[in-house]
């Protein structure tokens, strides 16, 4: 059992889903409430990782993170490190890759709030910010939670993009899904089975939790 790989996987999934909470919320709110040109294009771009093969996305991200690219140079000038084949690069790629899993549920939840509720809040004297905090956020909470958990699970099971961006560096970029792949290649069925069962258990628990929380929150 590769505990180090499990640690990397959980660290990556936590960092990605927590980063996606504010990012996803801002994007979802802008799409749900904003009226701007290119709204459909923005929505399509956010959904793109859902339909692109992970290797294609991974390839483009790898090219973008190359030490000769603008992003790679900028990252190097700040941290003195390379973005590609590092945990930070993996984290950034995971944010992009899991973006639709966070944004879509949040967007649908915000869109489902009746416009009259916001207007009633305004007519009750609540500012737009207070309306968001006291009305929209609690009402959209099931969707926000779903986005958070889905992006966590999705990052946990990531394979193609991790392989392209992170490679297979133990303790840095070697996640559980890569370790399973390695075990299978090395004919170590027992280890592959153990790690697969762990990923399966985490997926079952988190997805069940989504439904349970949502059911409880929606009952009010």
């Amino acid at each position, binding site marked *: 059992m590769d505990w180090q790989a499990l640690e990397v996987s959980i660290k990556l999934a936590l960092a990605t889903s927590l980063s996606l909470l504010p990012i996803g919320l801002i994007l979802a709110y802008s799409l749900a409430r904003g009226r701007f040109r290119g709204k459909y294009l923005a929505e399509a771009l956010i959904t793109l990782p859902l339909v692109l093969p992970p290797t294609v996305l991974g390839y483009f991200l790898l090219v973008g993170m190359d030490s000769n690219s603008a992003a790679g140079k900028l990252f190097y000038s700040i941290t003195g490190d390379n973005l590609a084949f590092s945990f930070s690069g993996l984290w950034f790629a995971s944010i992009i890759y899991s973006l639709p899993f966070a944004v879509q549920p949040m967007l649908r939840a915000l869109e489902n709030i009746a416009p009259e509720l916001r207007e009633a809040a305004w007519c*009750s004297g*609540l500012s737009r910010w207070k309306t968001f905090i006291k009305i929209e956020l609690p009402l959209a909470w099931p969707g926000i939670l779903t986005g958070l958990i889905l992006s966590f699970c999705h990052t946990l099971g990531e394979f193609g993009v991790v392989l392209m961006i992170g490679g297979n560096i133990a303790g840095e970029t070697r996640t559980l899904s890569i370790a399973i792949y390695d075990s299978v290649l090395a004919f170590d069925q027992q280890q592959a089975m153990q790690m697969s069962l762990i990923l399966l258990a985490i997926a079952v628990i988190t997805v069940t939790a989504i439904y349970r929380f949502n059911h409880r929150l929606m009952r009010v």
Partner: protein
Amino acid sequence: MLEATIKQQQPIPLEVQLECAAGEMLALVGPSGSGKTTVLRCIAGLHKPQQGLIRSQTIWFDSNHELNYSPQQRRVGMVFQNYALFPHLTVMQNIMLAMQTPQEHKVRALLEQVHLSGLESRFPSQLSGGQQQRVALARALARDPEVLLLDEPFSAVDKVTRRKLYLELHALRRQLSMPIILVTHDLDEAAMLADQMCVIHQGKTLQQGTVEDVLNRPQSLNVARLTDARNVFEGKIVLVEGQKKLQWCEQLLEIADTDFAVGSNVYWIIAPSKILLHQRRRPSRGEQENPVQAIIDDMITLRGITTVLMKVTGHNPLLIQMDIPEHVVERNQLQRGEHIGLSLLRNAIHLIEQ
């Protein structure tokens, strides 16, 4: 006092002028899609018209000076059509949210005012339609508003509850001192609750006046149609022995003083409740006023009032309607096909330009 002049071309054309004094209720009536709710939204600050002036105690909107207060700045109390209660908050929290300085005893006083004491900790989903409407009203009043806006507040409740709520709102009104605007397409509702009525059609104000005035003395045929005037006929002003009279087919009817010139063609209306039935047993003096003979065609009774549909003798197929209490029908033993005498009281005849 609330005054509003609203003009716009897009997204729906509006040309509306209305005013409502403090303590008065103004009913905005008109068919669906006539722009009533948009007018209310303009007053609340939820929709910005292209042109106009909206003034309460201060000016809220003035297109000439590019002044436009937000809904938060306007201090309006608004009851939405579906109440728009916050589903995740209790009744107490819904009302408290609208208070500048939330105080529990004030919420309890408001709930008592709307007959909802004891339901403070319930969620909106645990309330009936009537109770939800009362919470929405209490929330609108919680802000101590300058103007109270009611957007079809009775449309989401059943008829029995609606009647009960009418009486409650009628009683509550006596305790309120702000202008109240009620949007409705139900004329009976407007007539029962409001002091003033403003008829809107295709985004335009057609007439504003007292309920009695608008319903019995519409300024145009359009208003008469929109307010469901039932006895609308055509006639002509003629001069007989130095007096202006209304010629209706072969009949000459006495009318009150009028500015219509002799020879002008007019529409004329008479409210069904203002037609006098000649009683068989006790003839009254009013019978000499514009007497008309008719045959009863049909009778429909609803809640103690009978609408008698009659064919005026000699004017076939002109039908005229009269509303009389059910007991009058029974006492006079009125039946279909029977000949009866009526008086079209001269002061009840209202003339409209053709």
